[in-house]
């Protein structure tokens, strides 16, 4: 078969899965494969770059690479394609992390995991973006799993920052205090509430002027509302900034102004922003959960506890020691370079071809 088409339930241009899917298509085409992207939900601006799933050719003379991070209306039918399907697994958030906040979303996650359990044993094999994800697939009786890195062009982050955002952040910095940054959807599994608590501990024990910037759209209205209430209760309205979704240029401005990237997620299948922070030479302090230790690979500070004082202690140590900060930035740069598209592309393609040949 010389065609490898991709299926992605929701195709958004700028998120990690979308960027990975487009990069995979370009790689496949460059390697001589015919390759198109088919999606159930397609943003209007992407029409022309991808096709609706209804246009997927009939027959079985092509491979179907299923970009899986959520459930899909077609998820169950993919099992019928069996041998021709290769799952590219980015992880599905465990439902129990969402259930107390958004039961309906939690139910969708349960459904997605059930679909995955049906598709994986019948598929030819799978690519996982981390060993952590690969272990989940092995547990589902996947026939052949390869760990293949996510495809990201980090040089996008070398563009100029948004001028207005940069100026606003510079005004804050001029008033003193360090800037913590976290990038990711506002979601219970990302545990932004614990970042707020850690910042409160940090302000009481290390730096009373420190700020926290939470960049990312919301996946849970209830959770975001509660975080807002928590910020108010702790009197941190001027210190914690929930800025929502940002443009690429705005995101670059946030990375440029950040003194430290802090992540206390309970579950991450890879965590692209950690890599982005490393590329931007921002030291990373993160809690040891999911694939985080693997993504850090010793280039960031990995904490075994995320009690507020432990996180504050970790950040305090990094920001209080210039040589350590510089050393972390250097290690992070090396790590990010190792996972840049120029290096990961060939590794991804080789892994995919091993699965096809298995």
């Amino acid at each position, binding site marked *: 078969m010389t065609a490898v088409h991709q299926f992605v339930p929701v195709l958004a241009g700028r998120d990690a899965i979308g960027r990975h899917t487009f990069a995979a298509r370009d790689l496949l085409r460059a390697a001589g494969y015919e390759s198109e992207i088919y999606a159930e939900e397609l943003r209007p601006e992407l029409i022309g770059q991808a096709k609706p799933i209804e246009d997927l050719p009939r027959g079985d003379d092509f491979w179907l690479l299923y970009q899986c991070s959520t459930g899909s209306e077609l998820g169950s039918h993919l099992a019928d394609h069996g041998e021709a399907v290769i799952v590219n697994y980015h992880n599905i958030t465990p439902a129990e992390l969402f259930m107390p906040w958004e039961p309906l979303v939690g139910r969708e996650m349960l459904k997605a995991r059930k679909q995955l359990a049906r598709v994986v044993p019948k598929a030819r094999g799978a690519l996982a973006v981390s060993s952590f994800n690969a272990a989940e697939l092995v547990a589902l009786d996947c026939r052949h799993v390869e760990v293949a890195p996510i495809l990201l062009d980090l040089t996008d982050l070398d563009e100029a920052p948004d001028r207005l955002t940069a100026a606003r952040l510079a005004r804050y910095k001029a008033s003193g205090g360090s800037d913590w940054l976290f990038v990711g959807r506002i979601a219970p599994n990302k545990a932004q509430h*614990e970042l707020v608590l850690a910042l409160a501990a940090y302000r009481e024990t290390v730096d009373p002027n420190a700020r926290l910037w939470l960049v990312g759209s919301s996946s849970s209205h209830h959770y975001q509302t509660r975080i807002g209430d928590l910020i108010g209760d702790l009197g941190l309205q001027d210190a914690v900034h929930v800025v929502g979704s940002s443009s690429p240029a705005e995101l670059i401005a946030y990375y440029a102004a950040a003194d430290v990237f802090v992540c206390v997620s309970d579950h991450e299948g890879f965590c692209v922003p950690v890599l982005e922070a490393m590329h931007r030479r921002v030291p990373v302090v993160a809690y040891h959960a999911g694939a985080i230790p693997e993504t850090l690979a010793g280039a960031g500070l990995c904490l075994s506890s995320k009690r*507020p004082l432990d996180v504050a202690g970790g950040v305090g140590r990094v920001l209080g020691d210039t040589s350590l900060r510089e050393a972390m930035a250097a290690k992070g740069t090396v790590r990010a370079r190792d996972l840049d598209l120029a290096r990961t592309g060939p590794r991804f393609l080789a892994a995919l071809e091993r699965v096809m040949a298995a």
Partner: protein
Amino acid sequence: MPPADSAPDLDVIAAEIAAEVHRRRASGEFPPDLERRLDAAFARYSPPGSLGATAEGLLARAEECTAIDTDPPTSSQRAGVPVVKQGIKRAMAWYINFVAGQVSALGGHLVAAGRVLDRRVTRLESVVSEASDIVAQERRFAPAPAPDDDTIDAIARELGLLEGRVLHAECRTGALVERLAGAGTVAYGVEPRRELLVDASRRGLDVRPDDALEHLRRLPEKSLAAIVLSGAVDTAPLAQQLELLDHAVRVTRPEGRIVIASTAKLDPIVADLALGHPLGRATWMHLLAVRGWGDARVAHETPTSFVVVASRAA
């Protein structure tokens, strides 16, 4: 910019930070009640069952929910609808109140039962060290003595050059792994205290930060040529000592070796903070024999330690 390979090991720094925060917390250097205040602040806004919730917090929420509101809103933007809603409310009130009273009573009884259970579990946790977070936290900083050179020599001699992988759990600073790997054996180690592994990692040894029991639980059946158990086998609670042995038997190939590197006398601090106590050599040999590893013998002995080596009886 310093070169990346001259940078300090971040695992060591993470361990230092944990120890420093622990020390400051214990010495009262942090603002009083800071952590409790922060936990309480979020508990006020988190839904029942969310992360970090306490049993008492959940029960308090459940108790609030037992007060069922039987007075529904009746307003509406559409003319006439409020009148209809009020009519239904009045007509149904006797029935709704009858049912709500019973549901509230059920909820109240369940909350009361939950509180009784919580009190009992809390009491149990305070007397069963294994279940106590306070003890677990303290144990992380207990000393971690490594097997001495003579013991390492004896184990290396006993294992010889085996075909297949050899695991040392817990491997401390990786001395035995280094000895075995140097002799051509495919050896690796696991050790929960990652700070102990820093030098071994720098020397290129395959040592992994992992809990011995957790690691063994994940290993496939008959995947090792030999396993060496030390450290946790002396200090874990009896049930976990037996589970370690059961997994060792499960993951070792029939023609392989199981080695128990134990101590007859623990360091006084380790002994005080341990959840269990070292088992005697006769006990280890008995436990191995009843699991089908009858050919067990003491291969090395000093006044403070011994090594039991077992292979399957022919």
